[in-house]
């Protein structure tokens, strides 16, 4: 019976993993492309849902409400970007400041309540966890979110190939060189943060619809889950040489795997309350492995290796 219960939980885990995979793509843009750890996402992951649900409760369509959520997320990214570049506050601290401020803002958005629910029967939702099984495939959240993921990756692949996108990549890679080549690195960083947080808020909006409520604590630890997805994707698919789109896709798969593993762990008897600790440990271990490998298990370079001058 346990096995069947577990199998029953898998589609839900996949759907959830896909939605959070979108968030992980946002994290990837700041953490990997811009080389900047942005903690704003913990706040934005609540903001998007709050804006989306409140807008829908006011009678706006699901699509428009999602767009508004993206806009709100972008504003949050803009705030962090300005704190970091114009005000000269270190990136991590800028993110923490915005995130903290967002907590109050999120409560304001939700009318002072810690959560706001939205019924799947009264409102036209795009995704819901009720539709994971026994619905036509086009209503299944895995299908719907899957389409969003493909579209998002296509747009980002195109964008980071444009002049503007290339200048953001260059900024993350080598800021000195970028300035010497006439790139305004402040603008690049702000733009990257805006895009990233817009994507996170989009994911947040979808997740609120999926769950049927927005929660002021929905984003707590989001950055760690995002990092976990990025790292798992890198560990499993890193050996395959792929282009930028493939890397983004591997992040999404990383997220799905993360949620599948969580299901397994829950079935093994861990309490849901322990999950955050587990996430933290997983990320810490995977971040530490490359460092420890290099420090204690470095293979000595053979003498007479290739000389390249």
């Amino acid at each position, binding site marked *: 019976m346990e096995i069947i219960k577990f199998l029953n939980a898998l589609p839900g885990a996949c759907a959830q993993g896909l939605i959070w995979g979108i968030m992980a793509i946002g994290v990837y843009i700041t953490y990997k492309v811009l080389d900047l750890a942005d903690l704003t996402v913990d706040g934005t992951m609540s903001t998007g849902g709050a804006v989306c649900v409140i807008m829908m409760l006011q009678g706006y369509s699901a699509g428009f409400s999602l767009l508004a959520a993206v806009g709100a997320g972008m504003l949050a990214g803009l705030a962090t970007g300005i704190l970091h570049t114009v005000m000269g506050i270190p990136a991590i601290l800028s993110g923490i400041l915005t995130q903290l401020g967002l907590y109050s803002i999120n409560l304001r958005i939700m009318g002072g309540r810690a959560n706001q629910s939205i019924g799947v029967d009264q409102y036209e939702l795009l995704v819901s966890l009720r539709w994971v099984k026994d619905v036509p495939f086009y209503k299944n959240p895995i299908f719907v979110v899957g389409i969003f993921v493909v579209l998002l990756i296509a747009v980002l692949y195109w*964008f980071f*190939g*444009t*002049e*503007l*996108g*290339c*200048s953001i*990549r*260059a900024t993350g*890679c*080598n800021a*000195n*060189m*970028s*300035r*010497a*080549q*006439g*790139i*305004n*690195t402040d603008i690049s960083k702000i733009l990257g943060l805006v895009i990233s947080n817009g994507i996170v808020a989009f994911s947040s909006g979808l997740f609120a619809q999926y769950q049927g409520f927005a929660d002021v604590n929905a984003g707590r630890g989001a950055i760690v889950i995002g990092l976990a997805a990025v790292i798992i994707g890198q560990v499993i698919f890193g050996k395959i040489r792929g282009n930028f789109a493939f890397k983004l896709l591997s992040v999404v798969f990383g997220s799905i795997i993360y949620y599948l593993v969580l299901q397994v762990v829950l079935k093994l008897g861990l309490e849901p309350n322990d999950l955050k600790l587990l996430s933290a440990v997983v990320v810490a271990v995977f971040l530490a492995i490359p460092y420890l490998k290099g420090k204690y298990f470095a293979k000595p370079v053979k003498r007479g290796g290739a000389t*390249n*001058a």
Partner: protein
Amino acid sequence: MLRIEHIWKTFNVGTVNEKTALKDLSLELKEGDFVTVIGGNGAGKSTMLNAVAGVWPVDEGKIFIDDIDVTRLPEHKRAAYLGRVFQDPMTGTAANMQIQENLALALRRGTFRFLKSGITRAEREEYQEKLKVLDLGLEERMTSKVGLLSGGQRQALTLLMATLKKPKLLLLDEHTAALDPKTAAKVLDATERIVGRDHLTTLMITHNMKDAIAHGNRLIMMYEGNVIYDVSGEEKKKLKVADLLAKFEQASGGEFANDRMILA
């Protein structure tokens, strides 16, 4: 082409490490001048280049490039007029990006970057031709990540990037100092060819006095944040390393030239 008027720069103001790196420095370069810059450690050579490039603002004085006052322009805006190669081979290129992507970034220096394609097919062919000039086989590795290249290859690539879009002024900050002698000679040779071909106005810092004499049409020696010796034309051609050492001793009040200068 370049006009530096009475610039001052002091670092770490108000601390025990306070150092005035540029003291009332003035310098003028004519179009097509290839000026080599020598001087001991802390003479202000790199500081002068950074002041021109706009890495930080100067405390006093003005800087003009082609009669445009750039004193208040931020670094990325001045980049439109400048080509720069740094001492550290890691500084001038983006390691995680392809060779051709690095070149594409350089080609767009000084232009407004928006949603046009970051690199076009026509460009690729142009880069292939230009890379052949370097004679390092890089034209076969256009899609390799720059991080895979050696220091010398990266410096040569940076040089190409700095001159891909003809700059009003080329700034070379000891760009061969981190390379082994053979590679250094190769990069210097490429520098000479490109500067000669495009008639680039150039400021080249070097620790090697022989190189300073052998290259360019003018040589300046810096000491304690100012130019103490300025020689060009026929007089420069006749210079010997011994003359420069004597000059240096004279300027520093008999203080012996530092090891790096002697070894050079």
